[in-house]
């Protein structure tokens, strides 16, 4: 019987204010979504590594039709972490102030929505925001 989930350390770290991502000890790739084996080389030597949560904005949308329990407008996007993988996150930012390539960071926060997260119901979740003051990290900034 399996008592613990592979993803338990992610939520423990997040509760501690840290963002961790799976890292393959065999081929040195970071990846996301988390899985106990490496999707690049199929190795099972996967460890959780600390990430700064820093990255650049890959894509984003402002959603107007949302499920019950969510706000009428939801800003969601993909963050390309400095380690490589992309993470889907809600943004604590106005849609108008975002542009592809913006420097962003993923942080822990209390989960704000009325959605049943089942076994993770009491855990914090994560959210992305602009890294204000940083220079824009991507040369293709500007066009959308």
């Amino acid at each position: 019987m399996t008592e613990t989930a592979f993803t338990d350390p992610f939520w423990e770290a997040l509760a501690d204010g840290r963002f961790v991502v799976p890292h393959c000890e065999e081929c040195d790739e970071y990846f996301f979504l988390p899985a106990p084996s490496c999707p690049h080389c199929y190795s099972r030597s996967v460890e959780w590594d600390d990430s700064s949560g820093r990255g650049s904005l890959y894509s984003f949308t402002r959603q107007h039709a949302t499920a019950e329990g969510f706000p009428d407008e939801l800003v969601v996007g993909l963050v390309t972490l400095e380690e490589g993988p992309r993470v889907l996150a809600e943004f604590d930012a106005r849609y108008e102030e975002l542009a592809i390539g913006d420097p962003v960071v993923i942080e822990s926060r209390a989960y704000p929505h009325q959605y049943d997260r089942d076994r993770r119901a009491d855990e914090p979740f994560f959210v992305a925001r602009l890294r204000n003051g940083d220079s824009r990290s991507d040369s293709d900034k500007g066009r959308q």
Partner: protein
Amino acid sequence: MGRSRTAQVTGIGLLPNGTHSSPERELALTVVRDALADARLSPAAIDGLYMPAPRPWAEQKFVSTTLVHGLGIEPDRTLEVSTGGSSSANAFQTAVHDVRHGVVDTAIVLAAERSSTVETTGPYFEYILSTFDAEFESPIGLSVPGAYAQSMQRYCHEHDIDRDDIADIVVKNRENAADDPDTLFSEGVGRREVLESRPIAEPIRLYDCPAPCDGAAALVVTAYDVGETGTESEDDGEPPITIAGVGSHHAASHFLQTHGEPITELPAVRRAARTASQEAGLEPDELDIYEPYAPFPHIEAIITEELGLVDRGEGVDACLGGQTRPDGAFPISPSGGCLGRGHPPMVTPLYNYVEAVRQLRGTASTQIAGAEHVMTTAEHGHVNGATATVFARGRGA
């Protein structure tokens, strides 16, 4: 595993896209009866029944067993498939494989769906959320348009495409479907109407989204006997409509999550189309007509590129230049596709097959003269998995 027989479509049945008040199982029985009548077969001939599994909110579960009992048939094989938008496509391809390999002789493939019974903010959205990663993504609240919005944004960004130009694909598909009484809308839309419709998930607007509706369709798939020369259909001078190629592929992706590949390419369609067209003895860009499952307009543009019809980033130009119009060099979605027709996702792949058969019979609403080969595609998620099917007039490959 080699195949021994050629599969053909001998019967089609469909109900118009719209709102149907009868239960799904009655819609299903209606299209099955119509497809059998078209094929001049008795229900007793059916030895295989293939269909999508019921949606989570459907009233009737265990639906294939319900239908088998209701029809009073004794098939050797029944199958309910659950792969999202490609469910009925995978059901159809399995039927084709089974007919080719002699597992069954007469297969019925059907789908019936009533979108009108479900509130889009309630059980529907609950299901949609559950199709993203349950632990790391579902709690974010992303919708399907919210996912496709990001590939539209990236597509414009990477290829310097004017988002407004993408609206012309919606305009074309609505126009193609406008005269067909089996589709949801009787009028087209203008570019301005598309761009001024309310935002759903920016940059996607209402008319960029396929309209959910009710519908049902069925097809009869049988073996084409090489030795048979005097079949009824040939007495009528009608050539058989054969399934000349099938292909399918699943990329290592889940909605927008790839392993580094851009979200603006659709490798599942590329691979499935290559397999299907090669089996038909053609290159993917050599078909006469394409009926893709393209739920948002930029996806039709990218599929145009994946088929090799145009270079990367030129899919929108192909529409602006008229090449994808019914009178263009490579007509795409002459039926209107799900954007033009309306979209019961469980039925949409079968509507594409029905359209392929009608084009090859010469009975389509927006008929392309002299069509010999039609390719259809289907997909699920953010085109993570796809199927491609080539229909041919006559014996085919």
